[in-house]
């Protein structure tokens, strides 16, 4: 009889499959995971602390660096919370621009997830395809605000830059292009035997577990909960657009993939309508005082980022700086379920399950 014993395996913090500086302490028995403990904090920059010494406009670039795959939604979270607390009105043109850039960013973010996820489980080429298409979105952003990753685009009361001439048409062209590309992705990945083998029936959890762990975004919807803040607690002008909230059935990794791919299609739907209805003229900045003094009060708003509910909790004491600013980062909550999912799994599924959660460490650590 062979003697076996449990072994500690350290994964990360420098590891290509942890998508950033995440460390996992995994206890394994042969090839079976007995326990796993995520260690985070390697990218903690104290955004919330820094924000207490900054005025509201100065905080915006810091939010770019939280979830660096969808900086536009982060911009919107802080700006939206501040506007709600101040009771500001936003010009229609600015709202349209915001929705367009947020949805473009959602597509870009899902493309990165899809590409790197496939890379994690051993497929090289989808990554190149995904980044080729994402590049087009980054070029659009570059033209709009001069940045490709950290945009610093939104302001309290509107957006910083108006769309340059012809930009909206380019977005329209991209939407048509991307629609065709979706067929290519489905042909390339969705029916792939190896991909199905690696993802179907793996990493399953049910509705109750998902709610118990406070999951949000595709991680929650995959269990059949129709919870999308754009629909359930509409903000900005999302009420005007017709789109669906894709939900999964089994809650496995394959469902997560399908869910996110369908979300790209829904985002394209929103973009198509937004481009069509885009107002001709008008200002991109509302009437905002030079020094933003947010009235005393407290607010919590949640918006739907590509990864889930991105919340912003502001406590203001009537100064130009927040008394306390807290971000509810979706990745931080979503990552909590990882040890539960990993227990009893084969070690080879570790990376697949971790990748399926879609975390961004800049956001986990904040």
């Amino acid at each position, binding site marked *: 009889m062979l003697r076996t014993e449990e072994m500690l395996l350290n994964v990360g913090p420098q590891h290509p499959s942890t998508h950033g500086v995440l460390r996992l302490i995994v206890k394994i028995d042969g090839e079976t995971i007995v326990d796993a403990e995520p260690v985070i*904090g390697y990218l903690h920059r104290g955004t919330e602390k820094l924000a207490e010494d900054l005025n509201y406009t100065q905080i915006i670039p810091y939010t770019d660096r939280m979830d660096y795959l969808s900086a536009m939604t982060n911009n919107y979270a802080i700006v939206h919370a501040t506007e*709600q607390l101040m*009771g500001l009105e936003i010009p229609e043109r600015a709202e349209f621009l915001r929705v367009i850039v947020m949805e473009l960013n959602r597509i870009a973010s899902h493309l990165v997830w899809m590409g790197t996820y496939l890379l994690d489980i051993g497929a090289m080429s989808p990554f190149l395809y995904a980044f080729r298409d994402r590049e087009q979105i980054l070029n659009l952003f570059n033209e709009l605000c001069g940045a490709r990753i950290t945009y610093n685009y939104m302001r309290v009361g509107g957006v910083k830059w108006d769309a340059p001439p012809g930009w909206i048409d380019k977005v329209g062209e991209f939407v048509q292009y991307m629609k065709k590309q979706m067929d290519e992705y489905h042909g390339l990945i969705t029916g792939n035997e190896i991909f199905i083998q690696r993802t179907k029936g793996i990493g399953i959890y049910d509705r109750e577990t998902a709610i118990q762990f406070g999951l949000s975004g595709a991680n929650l919807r995959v269990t059949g909960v129709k919870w999308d803040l754009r629909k359930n607690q509409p903000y900005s002008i999302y009420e005007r657009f017709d789109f669906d909230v894709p939900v999964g059935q089994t809650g496995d990794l394959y469902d997560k993939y399908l869910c996110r791919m369908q979300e790209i299609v829904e985002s394209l739907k929103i973009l198509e309508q937004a481009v069509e209805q885009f107002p001709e003229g008008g200002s991109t900045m509302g009437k*905002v005082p030079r020094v933003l003094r947010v009235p005393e009060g407290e607010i*919590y708003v949640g918006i739907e980022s590509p990864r889930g509910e991105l*919340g912003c909790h502001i406590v203001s004491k009537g100064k130009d700086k927040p008394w306390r600013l807290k971000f509810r980062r979706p990745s931080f*909550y979503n990552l909590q379920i990882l040890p539960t999912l990993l227990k009893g799994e084969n070690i080879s599924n570790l990376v697949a399950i971790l990748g399926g959660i879609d975390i961004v460490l800049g956001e986990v650590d904040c």
Partner: protein
Amino acid sequence: MTEKEKRDPASSEEAGETLSADNRAQDVSPKQPGKREETDRTDSDRPQSSQKQEAAREATPKTPRPAAAGRARPAAGARNRPAVKKEEEKPLEPSPLEPVLNRFVEIIKEKAGAEAIEEAYVNRAGRHLPVLVIKRESWPSVAGLLKEDPGLSFDYVRNLSGVDYETHMEVVYHLYSFAHSHQIGIRVKTDREESRMPSVQHLWKAADWNEREIYDLLGIRFEGHPNLKRILMPDDWVGHPLRKDYEPLDKEV
């Protein structure tokens, strides 16, 4: 008026504002709404900070103190006006979520005792969120009630934040119920020096890391938490950075 004449007073107006920085927030909106919009629009075409500096540099030697003082006076008058208005508006129409709040209060009062709730109000500024301030001693029983009571059944934790108010510490819970589609904000106060809070991690697993985060950054100890250790800061870190009396290692940063 020619273009130039139009723009000149605007730039000196800005200079006046930069000098009397305190009055600026109040005096912008009530004054000459039409004109303000024009200057705003031209601003957005150019980088803001450099323009402000330019304007300040040009105007300071030309029109130093008197212009600023002249502008400060009407602004002081303008400052009082909105404050009076607010008081008049307040007693008007009750919030649409008032009945929801009353229902919550009734259930909790009935099952956890009337003294559990310190205060109940609808946070108008915060999207009309019903908020309850709960006594710390009653919080464990109220938390259980919020989760289990069929009329409340808050099964989803949206957010936990800790706030240092300098006089006391506070933990704010934002809960949601998928069964009833209603939400609530809970505030629980605790002492500042010896800040302790009953953990709700056994009710909502989502609160696990969040409580560790609050402990790490604000030093509030969650009693009953099975693994209360630092999560974002290094294990050997001294102090809790988000406390208002925290002294940073390097003040320049």
